């Protein structure tokens, strides 16, 4: 529970699909998603409050600092297996992925993998932090996580020659981006409208920026970045930085670490 003016807000956990379902069925006033609306969810009204970039990370000692989307896809599909094939040392690549069901995983799969599968040989971790720890310790590893959680023990690499940053997300040049959405039913009440305008307001946007997200207000006019939706499968994302919010009982309004 968090007091904003006189409105008290109760945050429930669950993935993006759970958020959309709750908003559709009226269980909740607002559903939070970290992906676009699919299928019958499109009857909801989406409000994008921020964007999140997914950064590809490697060990700082790894000379590789740029990959194009096809290379990333081949690495995660285990078609490219040595760093020497993409400008690194002759070392076997250790692929680190997120678990199925996580929002980061489904966004990554949608934007990069399309219908290709991530190799079952990939190491799987259930948090951004755990992925970062592995990559920080293994010179042969590659993984991905929310931009806000990148720290100096790992190196974020450029995708299609563009490094992830607030600016490159804002000017639509960085490709691995997902929207953070508040979804409501038709004719929201005054409190809901207040809440949404609060989220879009200066103060809330500053908080989102501090959490490592890209405030929607800073994105260039001409529409949001268009991630390639090649995968028709519905994705189960999750609202907000999943770090702080949705593991069982994590309190939705507490900030994630590293932000």
């Amino acid at each position, binding site marked *: 529970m968090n007091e904003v003016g006189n409105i008290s807000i109760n945050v429930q956990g*669950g*993935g993006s*699909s*759970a958020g959309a379902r709750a908003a559709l069925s009226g269980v909740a006033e607002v559903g939070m998603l970290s992906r676009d609306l699919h299928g019958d969810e499109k009857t909801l009204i989406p409000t994008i409050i921020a964007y999140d970039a997914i950064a590809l990370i490697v060990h700082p000692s790894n000379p590789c600092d740029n990959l194009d989307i096809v290379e990333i896809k081949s690495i995660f599909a285990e078609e490219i297996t040595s760093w020497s094939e993409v400008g690194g040392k002759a070392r076997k690549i*250790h692929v680190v992925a997120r*678990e*199925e*069901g*996580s*929002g980061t995983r*489904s966004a990554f*799969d949608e934007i990069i993998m399309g219908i290709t*599968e991530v*190799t*079952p*040989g*990939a*190491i*799987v*971790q*259930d948090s951004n932090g755990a992925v970062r720890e*592995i990559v920080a*310790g*293994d010179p*042969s*590893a590659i993984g991905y996580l929310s931009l806000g959680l990148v720290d100096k023990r790992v190196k974020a690499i450029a995708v299609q020659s563009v490094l992830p940053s607030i600016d490159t997300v804002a000017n639509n040049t960085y490709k691995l981006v997902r929207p953070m959405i508040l979804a409501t039913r038709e004719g929201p009440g005054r409190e809901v409208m207040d809440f949404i305008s609060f989220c879009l307001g200066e103060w809330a946007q500053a908080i989102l920026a501090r959490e490592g997200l890209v405030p929607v207000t800073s994105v260039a006019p001409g529409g949001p970045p268009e991630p390639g939706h090649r995968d028709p*499968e519905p*994705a*189960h994302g*999750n609202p907000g930085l*999943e770090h702080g919010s*949705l*593991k*069982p009982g994590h309190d939705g309004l507490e900030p994630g670490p590293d932000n």
Partner: protein
Amino acid sequence: MRRGETLVQWSLAIVALSAIAVLALIIIFIFKEGSPIIARLGMVQFITGTKWSPTRGMFGILPMIVGSVWVTLGALLIGVPIGLATAIFLAEMAPSGTSQILKSAIQLLAGIPSVVFGFIGLVILVPLIRQWLGGPGFSVLAAGIVLGIMILPTIVSVCYDVLKAVPQAYREGMLALGATRWQTIKMVVLPAARPGIIAAVILGMGRAVGETMAVIMVAGNATRIPVSPLEPVRTLTSNIALEMGYAVGEHREALFATGIVLFIIIALLNTLARLVARVEKV
């Protein structure tokens, strides 16, 4: 007076039934949640399928079953010889003062939470394996060693008690015949203690199969059947804990179904232990 006693007896009986009630609730709730997907796919399909890709609707848990078997075998391979040798030393060879102290120390260590074992594995073992043996370090080997160490205290205490229960007369008879102490242990004590030692092994096996957090930390959790001990692996338990956070719909059902398979495996192990115990009594 008499009526009061009957009342007490029945009240106690009702309280005593709570254990079986809990067991029944566990079975009902987990089966209710997980069985629909098993019914849809078929149990055979579910446990022999090699592909686990829930968001694409593929639910095969053979890699996790094989993973649990490999990791548990690894744990036994490490925990049983070391644990049994330690128990033999403490029960049969060491002076009783030393043996008492060491045994209590080992017993105390049985209380270390499994997450601590997993963490030590993560910060010490995984980098060592990566550096010296190759691969990502997160592996069958790492999980096997961590679990092997984790079950050590259990194996030592149970084997120690079993060895101590072998009647002294057996040993004296052998020694009187001129056998050395090692011959006595090998030919009389160990055979006499065999059913108890097997029970200890099964107990350790149950603990290793059921451990979750320590394994998630060091096993790497890949969904492919490992062909070498240096490859990452996912067990049944880690499959559940790893993906429970965001799973919805069929995916969630499949995780509870994984729980059902785990439950059945544990039930089989328990039955086996009970059978061994019965053989021991005969």
